[in-house]
């Protein structure tokens, strides 16, 4: 691996991320899968770093899951998106931050579609007006929440209590980063670091002391793929894709996986259990599984949050061996506290 080469590519894919004043929208499924992640995110940016993040209860789904499952057409989707933008406009914000990768992809796709086909934007504005009597401005900046943490990675590092290193040996932890497909594969220029070598999570890991491993199936989808999981007949296909990734990362002996997408951590986490039950095959050191984290959870750990406040007890694959490795003190009994 030639590090300079990657740095050169990273330097070509830098996106502008505003400093403050964000309109923050949550993810539909993350709130079920990893409910503490978004809470942690807001706690870090609002309370720890004192930034302005606005939330509204009127925000709905972006329509992404329905769209990618072929349940609604693109025009419907764009009208839903337009409504979210109207909420932002009403609240007086210009910087739009999505917690969900699918949403981020949907927003990017919608804005790009309007750029190429302005007549569609006009049509959507009309539809939105007819339906809700709302008007909107397009966001000036669109970011994914991981972009924000990426931007803040050094501030977090400065305030860090724990680092991504093996406390005993002092060696950096080996970290697999997994980027949601819709982050930059559709529009490479919209993601930090582009599509082939995304830097958004890598930047965090580097800043927090870990070592990124680049394994052959790094670019491969986590296996969720909407229809592949949602339709039971296809579920084996979803599982097989995840299996393929684990087989590929296995020889690199990763300590942990960090992700920036709602579905990925869920499937990378849960499918490990399914594979072990189905095939008798387990991954990770001492066959304890490879713990999978959202970037907010990792940021939380670095900043010294209590693991159980981060919702790590909800993970299928146990995180304790890693916490021990990092030298994080936690109360075992608290794991099952409500």
């Amino acid at each position, binding site marked *: 691996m030639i590090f300079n080469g990657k740095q050169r590519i990273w330097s070509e894919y830098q996106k502008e991320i505003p400093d403050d004043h964000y309109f923050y929208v949550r993810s539909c499924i993350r709130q079920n899968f990893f409910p503490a992640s978004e809470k942690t995110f807001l706690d870090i940016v609002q309370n720890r770093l004192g930034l302005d993040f606005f939330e509204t209860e009127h925000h709905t789904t972006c329509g992404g899951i329905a769209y990618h499952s072929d349940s609604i057409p693109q025009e419907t989707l764009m009208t839903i998106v337009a409504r979210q933008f109207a909420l932002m406009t009403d609240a007086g914000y210009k910087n739009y931050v999505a917690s969900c990768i699918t949403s981020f992809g949907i927003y990017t796709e919608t804005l790009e579609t309007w750029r190429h086909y302005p007549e569609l934007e006009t049509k959507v504005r009309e539809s939105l007006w007819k339906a809700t009597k709302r008007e909107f401005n397009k966001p000036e900046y669109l970011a994914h929440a991981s972009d924000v943490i990426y931007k803040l990675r050094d501030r977090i590092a400065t305030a860090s209590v724990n680092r991504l290193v093996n406390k005993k040996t002092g060696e950096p932890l080996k970290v697999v980063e997994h980027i949601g497909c819709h982050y930059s594969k559709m529009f490479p220029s919209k993601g930090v670091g582009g599509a082939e070598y995304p830097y958004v999570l890598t930047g965090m890991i580097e800043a927090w002391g870990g070592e990124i491993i680049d394994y052959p199936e790094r*670019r491969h989808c986590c296996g969720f793929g909407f229809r592949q999981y949602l339709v039971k007949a296809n579920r084996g296909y979803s599982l097989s894709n995840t299996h393929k990734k684990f087989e590929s990362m296995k020889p690199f002996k990763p300590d942990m996986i960090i992700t920036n997408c709602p579905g990925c951590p869920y499937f990378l986490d849960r499918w490990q259990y399914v594979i072990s039950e189905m095939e008798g095959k387990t991954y990770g050191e001492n066959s304890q599984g490879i713990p999978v984290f959202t970037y907010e959870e990792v940021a939380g750990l670095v900043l010294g949050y209590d693991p159980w406040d981060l919702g790590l007890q909800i993970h299928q694959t146990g995180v304790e061996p890693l916490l021990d490795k990092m030298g994080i003190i936690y109360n075992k009994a608290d794991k099952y506290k409500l």
Partner: protein
Amino acid sequence: MNKQVLVIGGGPAGLEAAGQLENLGYKAYIVEKSDKLGGHLLKWDRLFPESISAAETLQKLLEPVGHITTFLDCTVVSVSKTGEHFSVQLSNDATLNVSAIIVSAGFSLFPAEKKEEYGYNIYNRVITSADLEDFFKTGSDSRIQNPKSVGFVHCVGSRDEKACNRQCSKVCCITAVKQACEIKEQYPDADIYCFYMDLRMYGRGYEDLYLEAQSKYGIRFIRGRVSEVAEDETGKLVIKAEDTLSSKPLKITLDLLVLMVGMIKNADNENLSSLLNTRLGDDGFFQSASPILRSTEGEIAGIFFAGASTGPKTLPESINEAKASALAIHGYLSKQK
């Protein structure tokens, strides 16, 4: 006094054209932007399809131009045409008054880094065809360590609209076959694979070399474009492609991957064409007056082309075009008073 002709670009086409013009009784000047005459030929070891030495070929091309005035490290700054004469100012402050100009500015190699998924300059064992040719010439490249398996990726930066190059670079197919045979000669135990979209073996002797590559050297050809490259835990390259003949995705682990970089327009073609008041085609190469009957002539009287300035060409094609261009100039200047 003899009529004077400016040759822009001192590669094989420029050298041949200048030599021919001198033979025809004109005074030629060569302007070369690098510090050496010879262009891309300087970097070649052996030439396809018959393994002729590039150095000897260049030597022969240089012989007749020994006494021709040559400006190295020099570019054209401005050109003004008055009547039938061009007044050309060079970056070294010299001013030339010439009756005709040959644009033999050639081509550039596609920067392999642009195909990020192939990992050139990111993975240690990914090299370009130019690097490999340099290895054959100099015998050393730290990335080539007794490889047991080698892959060649055809059409890197060619026939690729996403890389902003729609054109076929013509020479890469046969170069890949040539280099595959050569590397097999150096490393007889190596398994060698060529990943191609189409094999364009159009020239004399090319098909023979292709057959020899298969039957004598056992080189395997896989019809499918490499989609991505990664490193495994030992640093070997993992290559993914579709084997389009069996309609199945394919994976192979290799010790060395050679990217067959294509021929693309020079970045300064645009500048040069505006100085000369000529047109560029959609592909960024110079546009001649007529692609069939007047392929060496520009639309402006007195401007001529030779070699790859008007699109990818093989070496013999470039040299023949240089001869044709010199003859066209002779015809043009003979009509002048």
